[in-house]
């Protein structure tokens, strides 16, 4: 296993002032456990300070550094050079911004714009169920929680929305998932409202069960499973079971 790789990054660039888009090649040597965010930083330091990209926590928790590497949407803070070489069997990588929102510059997309779809589904409890009579806390049975706890791991990185076959007129897998989480959450009582969004024109009728969302999700959430539950009719409204 080589200690250092000769890499070529073909990075999509975009200059909003001139509205020019182009692909720029960067050649660099990199150790096997460097992450892709480290490569971008290295490029900024050694070759080109104008390359724009985004990251925040760099621990796979904030969802800011999502990009497409050789077509695959992923978190670049989690992608080691060595793993990328093994996965794509090449030393040349196409680096593109996510398609879930408009590009601001180079690899940075407008996450505010992407979040509009998540906000649309109201990813919070719209109408609270009553708490348990013996206290002020909610009691959710482990079995109920088990059914949807996986979906609560979503960090809204928009990798799934970028991988999805349906790129237009669709809320996108993560926004649909946020809605489903609250449908499965017994603390929420506004189920009808949520079902209207779910089965609405921009909701699950646009999902083609391609499962690309589940395939790319860095949090390993099987999003397509939850969407299929909705198609199967698993969320028919029933009396709240919080109490």
């Amino acid at each position, binding site marked *: 296993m080589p200690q250092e790789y000769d890499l070529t990054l073909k990075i999509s660039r975009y200059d909003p002032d001139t509205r020019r888009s182009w692909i720029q090649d960067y050649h660099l040597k990199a150790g096997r456990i460097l992450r892709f965010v480290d490569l971008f930083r290295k490029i900024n330091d050694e070759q080109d300070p104008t390359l724009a990209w985004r990251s925040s926590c760099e621990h796979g928790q904030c969802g800011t550094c999502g990009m*497409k590497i*050789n*077509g*695959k*949407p992923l978190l670049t803070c989690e992608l080691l050079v060595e793993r990328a070489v093994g*996965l*794509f069997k090449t030393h040349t990588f196409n680096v593109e911004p996510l398609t879930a929102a408009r590009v601001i510059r180079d690899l940075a997309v407008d996450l505010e714009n992407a979040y509009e779809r998540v906000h649309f589904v109201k990813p919070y409890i719209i109408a609270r169920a009553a708490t348990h009579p013996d206290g002020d806390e909610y009691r959710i049975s482990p079995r109920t929680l088990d059914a949807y706890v*996986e979906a609560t791991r979503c960090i809204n990185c928009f990798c799934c929305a970028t*991988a999805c*076959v*349906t*790129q*237009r*007129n*669709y809320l996108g897998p993560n926004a649909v998932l946020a809605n489903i989480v609250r449908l499965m959450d017994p603390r929420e009582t506004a189920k009808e409202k949520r*079902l209207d969004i*779910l*089965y609405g024109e921009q909701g*699950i*009728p*646009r999902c*083609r*069960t*391609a*499962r*690309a969302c*589940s*395939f*790319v999700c860095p949090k*390993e*959430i*099987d999003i*397509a*499973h939850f969407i*299929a*539950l909705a*198609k*199967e*009719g698993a969320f*028919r409204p029933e009396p709240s079971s919080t109490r």
Partner: protein
Amino acid sequence: MNTSIQRTGIEAYLTGILERSEKLSYYARAKGWGFVMTWAHRIAGLILVLYMFFHIYTLSALYEPAVFASKMKFVDNFVFGFLEWALAVPVIFHALNGARLICYEAFRIRHDALMIRWVFFLGAVYVLTLAHLMFMGNQQVSAGLFWLMVAIASTIASSIVYKKLRHTQNRLLWRLQRVSGAFLLPMVSGHMFFMHLNFQAGHDVDTITARMSGMGIKIVDFVFVILVFFHAGFGLYTIIGDWVEDRRLRAGLSVVASFVMAVFAYAGVRIIFSM
């Protein structure tokens, strides 16, 4: 719900074969085989829509038997024979892959890697059987019994799907698309099978006319044609909806697609009842 086992399963099985195609493996590695299957499903569907138009057009020559006979003479050669057989590939792929999607969406069958293997395996068995039948020459079957069996299979399949989706809040046309798909799986694969059992069945005017003169077969063919064009029309409608952002353009294109499908469905029904 972890999907990593499924990823490995699919990749281990198919990568060896499909990696030879750089484009396919690029998408498979980037977005998974499910993504590739979805596009293949769409492309196969579009090929079938075009073929259905062509099929209705050629069958419309039955109004003038001499014209039909001369057309059939033109296609009576190895190249067209091969194309007729090759058509079974998109047909059976679209049908079986559709069944896989229904299993996933409505029946909670989550062994998707295994299901993809079954789609390829059963598809291969089907097309090879058709090739075998073509080489064997004419087989004698009772058309009435054959179509009765197919009609029963189609009715059972579509009833099961209908029962499962009836009380869900999915839109009516969305549900009908799955129900019609379940009906068409035995019907379309049976139709192609029947045509390959006996070469005359689809090429000789007298044989076709005799077969289509019974009321039972007319009813089966009527339901078949209506559901095929509904299924194709709704498929086009969803593709338009997935691609066209402008509301008015989307509505306009959907109306045009529905109109074209209705015209071809009408032409098909007219042929059936004029025999």
